C-alpha cells in the first residue's frame, strides 16, 4: 500500500446561493501517512469547505478524491458512510456527543456500527482510549456532567475507536480555553508520534498550526503554501 492517505485531483466546489461562486479552485493536495497537517486561512477562504469535501460528507464537487488510492468520487451514500465509519475519525468544534448515552457508549457507538469486533472488545478498546486521554474516571458519566474540555476528549476517543486512517478536525480547539487547547494539541501530537496517526486539522489558531508538521495555508479557494 502506498503512503498516500488522501489525495485530491482538481477539486472544485461552487456555491450557488445567492450567485454562482467558486469556493474552491482546482485543489490538488496529498496527505501522507503519519503526517500532522493543519489547514489555516482567513474566514471564508474555503478551508472548512475543503475539509467537508475530504470528509466525504459533502459530495457536491468537481474533480476527484482518493482515500488510500481508492477513488471515492461517485460512490453511493451507503458506501461513503461505511468509509467514514471505518477510515475517518471526526472531531468538530462542538463535541456532538449523544446526550442519551454515557461517555463509554458514546465512544463505542462507531465501533458497534462497524460491527467487526465483539461488544466486549470494543468496550475494552474504548476504555484504553479513554485511559490514554485520562478520562477513565468519567467513563460512566453522562455527557452533560462533563466540562467542555472533557467532552472534547471524549469526542477524540470516539474518533479513535475504529483506528481510523485519518482523523479530521474542524476547529477542534475553537471552543476551548488555552489550557484545554494545549491539552488537545498534546493529545494529537502524541498520537502522531506514538501511533503514526495521520491528522488533518482545520484551524484559525496560528499557534496551534505552527506546532504541526505541515501547514497548508489557503486564500480565496486556493492553496498558497
Amino acid at each position, binding site marked *: 500500500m502506498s503512503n498516500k492517505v488522501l489525495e485530491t485531483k482538481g477539486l472544485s466546489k461552487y456555491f450557488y446561493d445567492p450567485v454562482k461562486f467558486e469556493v474552491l479552485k482546482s485543489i490538488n493536495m496529498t496527505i501522507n501517512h503519519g503526517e500532522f497537517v493543519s489547514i489555516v486561512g482567513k474566514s471564508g477562504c474555503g478551508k*472548512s469547505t475543503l475539509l467537508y469535501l475530504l470528509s466525504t460528507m459533502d459530495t457536491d464537487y468537481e474533480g476527484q478524491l482518493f482515500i488510500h488510492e481508492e477513488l471515492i468520487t461517485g460512490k453511493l*451514500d451507503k458506501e461513503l458512510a461505511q468509509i467514514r465509519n471505518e477510515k475517518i475519525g471526526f472531531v468538530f468544534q462542538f463535541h*456532538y456527543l449523544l446526550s*442519551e448515552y454515557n461517555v463509554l457508549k458514546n465512544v463505542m457507538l462507531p465501533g458497534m*456500527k462497524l460491527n467487526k469486533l465483539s461488544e466486549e472488545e470494543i468496550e475494552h478498546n474504548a476504555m484504553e482510549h479513554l485511559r490514554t486521554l485520562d478520562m477513565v474516571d468519567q467513563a460512566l458519566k453522562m455527557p452533560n456532567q462533563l466540562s467542555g474540555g472533557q467532552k472534547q476528549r471524549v469526542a477524540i476517543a470516539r474518533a479513535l475507536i475504529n483506528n481510523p486512517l485519518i482523523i479530521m478536525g474542524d476547529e477542534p480547539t475553537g471552543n476551548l480555553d488555552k489550557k484545554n487547547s494545549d491539552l488537545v494539541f498534546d493529545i494529537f501530537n502524541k498520537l502522531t508520534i506514538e501511533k503514526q496517526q495521520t491528522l488533518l486539522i482545520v484551524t484559525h489558531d496560528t499557534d496551534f498550526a505552527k506546532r504541526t508538521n505541515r501547514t497548508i495555508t489557503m486564500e480565496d479557494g486556493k492553496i498558497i503554501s
Partner: protein
Amino acid sequence: MNFKLILNIALHLLRARLKQTIVAAVGVTFGIAMFITLVSFMNGMNDLLDGLMLNRTPHVRLYNEIKPSENQPISYAKKYKDNTNFISSVKPKDRGKAIYNCKSIIYALKQDKRIIDVAPKVTTPVFFNSGTIELSGVINGIDVLAEEKLFKISDYIIDGKVPDLLQNNSIIIGKGLANKMLLQKGDIIKVTTSKGNLSSLKVVGISQIGIADIDDAMSYTSLVTAQKLLGEPTNYITDIQVKTYDITTAPALAKEFKEKFDLDTIDYQTTNSQFETGSSIRSIISYAVGIVLLIVAGFGIYNILNMMIFEKMDSIAILKATGFSGNDVKWIFISLSLVIGLAGGLFGLLFGYILSSIVDIIPFNTAALPTIKTYPINYNPMFYIIGITFALITTFIAGLFPALKASKIDPVEIIRGK
C-alpha cells in the same frame, strides 16, 4: 445493517423523551382498545341477530306453493301455438299443500353429504277456541328431535320442555296467545282446523320468540298430532327444512332441489337478505371508527417524531458523520415509531379485552331474547390480530415520513451551522 444497534439507539432516543412517547403510545392504545371493543360488540350483536334468524330459518325450504299453472291448456293446443294468447281470470291450481312422495325425498336428502339434517314439518292454519271467541293461529307440526337439533327451539321455550311434545295431543303455544287466552302450562286448549275438525290439546309449554306477531299466532305440536288434527295420513308433510354445512351453498342447493324434486324451494339468503345487509353495515361502521381512531393516533406519532427529529438534528448529524448511512437513520426512526405502535397496540389489545369483558357483564334484558342476559361479545382472536396489524401499519406509515426526512438531513449543514 445492524438492527440490534439501530433498535438500541431508537430505544435510547425514546427513553430520553419518555413522556411524549407515552402520550403517543396512549393514542394508539386508545384507538386499538376502542376498535377491539367496538368490533367485538358489533360482531357479538351480529352473531346474536344472525343466530336469531339463522337458528330458526332453514337454509333451504322445500314446499308446494299455491300458484297458477305455468302452462295453461291453450298453450298445449297446436293450433294456437304461434298466436299470442291472453287468458283472463286465471286461478291458482290446487295441487294440495302436501309434498308428494315426501318420504323418499327426505331419504334422498339425508344421504346428501352437504346436508347436516332434514326436518319435515306440517304447517296449517287453525282457530284456537276460547269460550265463544276464536283466535286464528298457525300450528307447526314438527319432528321434535330433528327440529331441536337444527333450530334449537328450546332456546325460545320460556316454560315447559320441548321433549314433552312427544306425548300425544300436546302443544306448545306462543306467549301472546297464552296471555290472550289466559292459558298456562297444563291447561287444555281447543283447536278447530280449517276443515272443521275440532280437537283438544294439552298445553305443555309456552314459547317466546320476541316478535309479537309470531308469538300471538304460533304454536308447536308433534308431526303426528298435527297429521291427526288434519285427518291426514302419516306421509302428509307440507314443508321439508334443510340445514347445510356451508350456508353459502344454500342458493345453489335450492336451485338443484327445485329441479330434482320438482318442488318450490327458497334459500336462506333470499329469505333474509335484509339481515345480511344489516350485519355488513354494522361491521363496516365498527371498522371505520377503529381506523379513524388509529389515523388520529398516527398523526400524533407523526407530530412527535417530527419534533424529535428537529430536536435531535445534532445527534443525527454525528451519527451520519461517524458512519451511519441515511438508510440506518431512517430505520432508527421507523423502529422508534414501530416500538410506540407495538407497545401501544399490545396495551390496546389488553384494554380492549378488558373493556369488552366489562360490556359482556352489563345486564341486557329484552323481551325479544329470553335467553340473553348480558350484552353479547364476540371474542374472535381474528379481531386482535387485525387490531395489532392496524396498529403496526399506521405507526409504520406515521413514522415513515419523518424518518425519510431524517435520512435526508445533510450533516455538513448542521455541523457547519454551529
